[in-house]
C-alpha cells in the first residue's frame, strides 16, 4: 500500500513539472517583449528592473525557468497587471470561493447522483429508472450557463427569492447560502447527469454477476445484497466522483461569469480579457496542481476501498 502511494506520488511530479513548463512558456508565447507581457504599461524603471531580476530575463531559458520555479515554490507568483496586487492574494481569494462552490455543487450532485443511479439500477426498466435516466440525460445535455440564466430568470427575476449575482457581502451563514444556492444548482447539473449514469451502469454490471445470484440464492436479505453491490461498484464510482470534482473546480468559468461569482473561473475569464498573464499563470498553475493532487487522492482512496488495485 505505502509502496504504491509512493510510486503514485513520484508519478505526479513529472505531470506537475509539465504543467509548470507550459505555464512558464505563456510569457514567451505572448506577443511582444516578455517584460510587456508581465508588467503594466506605466511601470517605473525600478519596477521593470525588479521584474527582470525576478524572471531573470537576461539568462538562458532553462535558467529562467528554474529561477521562476524557485519563486513559485515560495508562493511568489508575481504581480497582477490589472490590480498590481500580488497574484497569490488574488488567486487565494478566488480559489477559496471556487472551492466552496465546487464542494457544494459536488456534494449535491454526488448525493443525488449516487442515490438516483442506485435506485435506477435496482428498479431497472421501471418508471423510476426511466425518470432517473431522463434526469441524467437532461443533466449532461443542458449547457450549465444556460441553465444558470434560466434559474436567474425564475428564482431571482420572477419570484425574487434568491440573489442573481455575486458572493454574499453581508455577514451570516444564511446570506451566504442564499447567494450560493443558484450557482450550486447550475453547476451540479452536469455531474449529476454523469454520476447517475455511471452509478446506474456500474451497479447493473455487478447485479448481473453470478455472485449476486449466489448471494440471493443463499437467502441474503435485499438490504445486504445492496450493500455488497455498492461495495463492489465503489472504486468505479469513486473515480468518477474525483474527476467530476476536479472538473467542478476548473470548469466553472461560464457559471461563475453568469453569476459574477468571484472564483477562479471568474478570475480566469477576466484575466484572459485583461491579458493579465501573471494572473493567468497563477490560476492555471494552482488549478493544475489541484487536479493532479485530487487524482492522486482518488487513486489512493481506491486502493483503500479495493486493495487489489495496489497489487497490480
Amino acid at each position: 500500500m505505502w509502496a504504491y502511494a509512493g510510486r503514485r506520488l513520484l508519478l505526479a511530479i513529472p505531470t506537475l513539472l509539465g504543467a509548470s513548463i507550459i505555464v512558464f512558456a505563456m510569457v514567451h508565447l505572448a506577443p511582444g517583449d516578455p517584460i510587456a507581457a508581465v508588467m503594466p504599461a506605466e511601470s517605473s524603471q525600478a519596477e521593470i528592473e525588479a521584474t527582470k531580476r525576478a524572471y531573470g530575463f537576461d539568462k538562458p531559458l532553462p535558467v529562467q525557468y528554474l529561477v521562476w520555479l524557485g519563486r513559485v515554490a515560495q508562493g511568489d507568483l508575481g504581480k497582477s497587471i490589472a490590480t498590481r496586487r500580488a497574484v497569490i492574494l488574488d488567486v487565494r481569494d478566488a480559489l477559496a470561493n471556487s472551492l466552496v462552490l465546487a464542494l457544494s455543487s459536488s456534494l449535491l450532485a454526488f448525493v443525488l447522483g449516487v442515490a438516483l443511479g442506485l435506485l435506477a439500477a435496482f428498479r431497472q426498466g421501471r418508471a423510476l429508472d426511466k425518470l432517473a435516466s431522463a434526469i441524467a440525460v437532461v443533466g449532461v445535455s443542458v449547457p450549465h450557463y444556460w441553465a444558470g440564466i434560466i434559474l436567474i430568470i425564475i428564482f431571482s427575476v420572477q419570484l425574487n427569492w434568491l440573489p442573481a449575482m455575486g458572493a454574499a457581502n453581508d455577514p451570516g451563514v444564511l446570506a451566504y447560502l442564499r447567494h450560493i444556492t443558484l450557482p450550486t444548482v447550475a453547476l451540479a447539473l452536469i455531474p449529476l447527469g454523469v454520476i447517475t449514469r455511471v452509478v446506474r451502469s456500474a451497479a447493473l454490471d455487478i447485479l448481473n454477476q453470478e455472485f449476486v445470484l449466489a448471494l440471493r440464492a443463499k437467502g441474503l436479505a435485499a438490504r445486504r445484497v445492496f450493500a455488497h453491490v455498492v461495495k463492489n461498484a465503489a472504486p468505479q464510482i469513486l473515480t468518477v466522483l474525483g474527476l467530476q470534482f476536479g472538473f467542478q473546480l476548473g470548469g466553472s468559468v461560464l457559471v461563475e461569469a453568469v453569476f459574477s461569482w468571484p472564483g477562479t473561473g471568474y478570475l480566469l475569464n477576466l484575466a484572459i480579457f485583461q491579458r493579465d498573464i501573471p494572473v493567468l499563470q497563477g490560476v492555471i498553475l494552482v488549478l493544475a496542481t489541484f487536479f493532479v493532487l485530487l487524482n492522486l487522492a482518488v487513486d489512493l482512496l481506491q486502493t483503500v476501498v479495493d486493495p487489489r488495485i495496489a497489487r497490480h
Partner: protein
Amino acid sequence: MRRVVTLLLAAVFSLSWTDIAFAQGTLRIGMTASDIPYTGGQTDNGFEGFRFVGYQIYEPLIAWDLTRGDRLAPLVPGLAESWEVRRDQPTKWVFKLRKGVTFHDGSPFNADAVVFSYESIKKKDAPHFDSYGSGQVSFRLASLTGITKIDDHTVEFETNKPTSFVPYQVCYMLIVSPTQWNKVKDWRKFAEQPSGTGPFRVTKFVPRERLELEAYRSYWDAKRRPKIDRLVLLPLPEPTTRLAALRSGQVDWIEVPPPDSIPQLKGGGFQITMNSYPHNWTHTLRLDKEPWNNKLVRKAANYAVDRVGICKSLLNDTCVPATGVVYKGHPWFGKPKETYDYNPAKARELLRQAGFDGVSKRPARAVHLISTSGSGQMLPLAMNELIQKNLKEVGIDVDLQPVEWNTLLTRWRAGFKTAENEGLNAWNISWNFLEPWSGFGRFFHSKAVVPVAVNTMPYINPEADRLIDEAERTFDVGKQNEILARLHELVVDDAPWIFVVHDQNPRALSARVKGFVQPQSWFVDLTSVTVR
C-alpha cells in the same frame, strides 16, 4: 426529513426581505467596468471611472455643473473659487483656492495639496510620482508645464503656450491628500485607503468585487451633501447579469441596460433615463498603413455602415447616427461636404476607385481591437458584429479582436507602434467632445502624436494644426466655435475615423431611486439622489 427541508428552504427564502432593509439610504450601482476603477486619485476605466470613483471621492479645482439636464454641462468653481490668466504673461494662470475644505482624513486642503497632486502626475522623479495614475490622466493635461505655490491659498499654473484650453484640462486633475499619502508612502496602499475632498469617502474596498462608500458629512458645499448614507459600486460587465441584478433588486441602478430589455423594464416600473451628451462611438483608424491610409477606402467604410439599422433595430433608439465627430446642432458641426448615409453601392464604387477590386488587392483587410464592455462603449460586441457584416458586404474584411476595456485603453495610449499593437489597423473606442481639446486637439494636431497625447493614427494635416492653434488662442467662445466648425468640416471630409453613432446614455433605475437628473454629460451628480 421533508419538514426539515421545507423549514430550511423557508428560512433561506424569507431572508429576501433583508436585502431591502439593508438598502435603506443606500444606492447600489452596477457599472459596466469589469473591475473597480482605480481609487488612488487619477482614476482609470475611462470616464466611467471619473463618473463613479474619481468625481465622487475626489474633486478638481474646476468642476462640472451636473445639476441640470437641459443644457450642456458647464464648468463651475470646484476646489478653486476663481481663476484667471495673467494679462502680462498669458502663459500663466492664477487659481484662488477655496478655504475651509478638509480631506476625508481631516487634514486641510491648501496649495501644498494642489502642488503635491500635480507633481504626482507630472514630476517623474518625485517620490510621490504615481506612474499608474499619471498614465491615466497626463495626456489630458498636455498644456500644463509647471506649478508654483504663491501662498497657502493661491497657485499659479504655467502652460507651454498661451491657451484658452487650460480650464478644460484642470478639470481632470483630481486633488489627493498629501497627509494620507505620507502615512502609507505607496500608491497601491493609498488606493485601498484613499482620501480626497469629494462628497463620498471609501469605507471598504474588495478588489474585483465591490467598492463601498459613505456620505462625507463634513463636505464643504452644504448644498451638495449627499442625501444617501451609502454608495456601493459593483463591476458587472455582463449586460444580462447587470439586468438580472437590477430586476432581482440586488442593485438600484445599472448603466447601459440591454436595449431589448427597455420596454420590459419600463413596464415593470423601472425608470429609464436618457439624454444626449458629447459622445461619439467610432473606429479610430491607423493612417500610416494599408488599407486605411487611403482616403477613398475610409470614405467607403463610412458609406458602408448602416447607422440607422444599428440605432433602430439593434439598440432600440438609445442612440442617433453619427456622421462626424459631433452631432448636427452642436456649435462645432459646421457644414461638412460629406453626409455619410448608408450607401453600399457608393462604398463599392469608392473601393473600386481605390484599387480594391483587382485580384491582388481584394478584399481590403484590417484587424480592429475592440472591447467587451466599458464606459461609453455601449454594446460593443453586437454593434461590431453588425459593422463587420456591413463592411464585409462591400468588400472590406475586418477581423475583430476583443479585449477587456481597461486593457484596450492601456494599449491605445501606447499607440500602434508597439510590438503588441503592430498588427492592428484600428481601435474601437468611444470618445467625448466635452471641450475642444478632448474633441479635437488631442486627436488631430500633429504635435499631439503619441506619447505627448493620443493622436495615434497619426493624423497629420497642417490646416488642422493651424485651426486648432487658432481656436486655442481665441478666448472668445463664439469665435472659437466658428473655427472649430471649420476644423470639423475638414475632419469629416478626411474621414480618419469610421463615424458610427452618438449614444443617448441609457441607464435603468429602480422606482425607489428619486431625485436623479441626467445631465448632458458623461458624469453624474449623485448627491441629489435619494433611495426611497
